[in-house]
């Protein structure tokens, strides 16, 4: 068997420097989130007007979400998208610097989640790069089970998670998808203990053969089916959760869908397509409701196909 080309075409590195980030941390400490938001408008405007690379990064998603937009409208949309991302990064820092109670995170489907957890097979939270998952996860404290987050941080990634501002203990265990066997054994271990596993379903790690092409915003894009495979093997339900920013200091957590993947789906990815479709349809619906809160700044539609 031959190894397929590696899939990762995105980076988690910030476009700003450590110095620029530190300026915002000082602004938050001295003037709170309002001052940081105010300055942010000018910083984003500078990046949108004078950094073509930033506009290009925005255009991959915006050209699919708003295909009819012409150049000026696209510029405005790029500004709005970048501004939302900036606000979310500020909110994350606000929570870390000024305290968790500065941001309110609401979740209305507690009973559904508690019922799913009581099944004892663990639960997979399938999320996406929307809103701020770090802040929104604070809405899930009522679960009282350990949360495992599948994330990879690159060297040079200078964005601080909220708990890193005060050297707090990490509120969740991190599983690195670039670790031994993609971290899958750790994921299975967590689910076996009845814990929660958070996976981002909109970016591919590792091998392209673990991804399927699904129509997203009018064109085929590749999405990983790893979460569906793990759900099928472990019996854990897949809960599609999307955090979103709702107002200046509020976040919501939307339970978009609960997906059950039956056991015995086999090795080929094709069997997982209907379940993956459910996730992608939910994500597409989210981008209709919150068009400026989807933060995949790479061309996920141009990833080479394997299926």
């Amino acid at each position, binding site marked *: *068997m*031959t*190894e397929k080309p590696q899939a990762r075409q995105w980076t988690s590195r910030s476009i700003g420097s450590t110095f620029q980030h530190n300026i915002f941390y000082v602004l938050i400490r001295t003037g709170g989130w309002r001052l940081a938001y105010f300055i942010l408008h000018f910083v984003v405007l500078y990046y949108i007007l004078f950094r073509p690379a930033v506009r290009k990064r925005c255009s991959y998603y915006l050209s699919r979400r708003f295909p009819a937009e012409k150049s000026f409208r696209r510029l405005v949309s790029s500004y709005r998208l970048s501004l939302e991302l900036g606000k979310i990064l500020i909110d994350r820092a606000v929570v870390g610097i000024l305290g968790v109670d500065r941001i309110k995170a609401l979740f209305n489907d507690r009973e559904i989640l508690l019922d799913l957890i009581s099944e004892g097979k663990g639960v997979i939270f399938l999320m996406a790069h929307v809103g701020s998952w770090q802040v929104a996860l604070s809405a899930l404290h009522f679960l009282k089970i350990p949360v495992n987050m599948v994330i990879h941080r690159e060297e040079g990634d200078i964005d601080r998670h909220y708990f890193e501002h005060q050297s707090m203990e990490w509120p969740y265990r991190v599983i690195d998808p670039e*670790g*031994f*066997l*993609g*971290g*899958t*054994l*750790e*994921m*299975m*271990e967590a689910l076996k203990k009845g814990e929660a596993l958070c996976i981002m379903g909109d970016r591919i790690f*590792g*091998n392209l*053969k*673990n991804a399927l092409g699904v129509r997203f915003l009018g064109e085929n894009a590749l999405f990983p089916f*790893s979460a569906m*495979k*793990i759900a099928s*093997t*472990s019996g854990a339900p897949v809960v599609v959760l999307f955090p979103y920013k709702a107002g200046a200091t509020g976040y919501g957590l939307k339970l978009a869908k609960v997906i059950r993947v039956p056991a015995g789906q*086999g*090795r*080929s990815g094709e069997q997982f397509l209907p379940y993956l479709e459910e996730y992608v349809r939910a994500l597409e619906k989210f981008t209709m409701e919150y068009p400026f809160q989807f933060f995949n700044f790479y061309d996920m539609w141009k990833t080479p196909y394997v299926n």
Partner: protein
Amino acid sequence: MNLNEELKKIIVKDLFLEDITWDQIEDDAPLFGEGLGLDSLDAVELVVIIQKHFNVEIKDMDEGRVAFQSINSLASFIRERQTS
């Protein structure tokens, strides 16, 4: 049928390997990456397969690291757990 042979047959059948037969699998070839070419999602399935057929649990990553090197290491791991 010895344990190595049984393992090879189970892996080919339960992982739906189509481009290799059980007798083409070498005892000391790596299971993942180069060698048999299994990937991280196969590891998920393999944990369940080993438990189902041999009632041996691969509890965590450390055990997986030891057991999942080759057919030989997997067979040794199973033997060890079944006798302990």
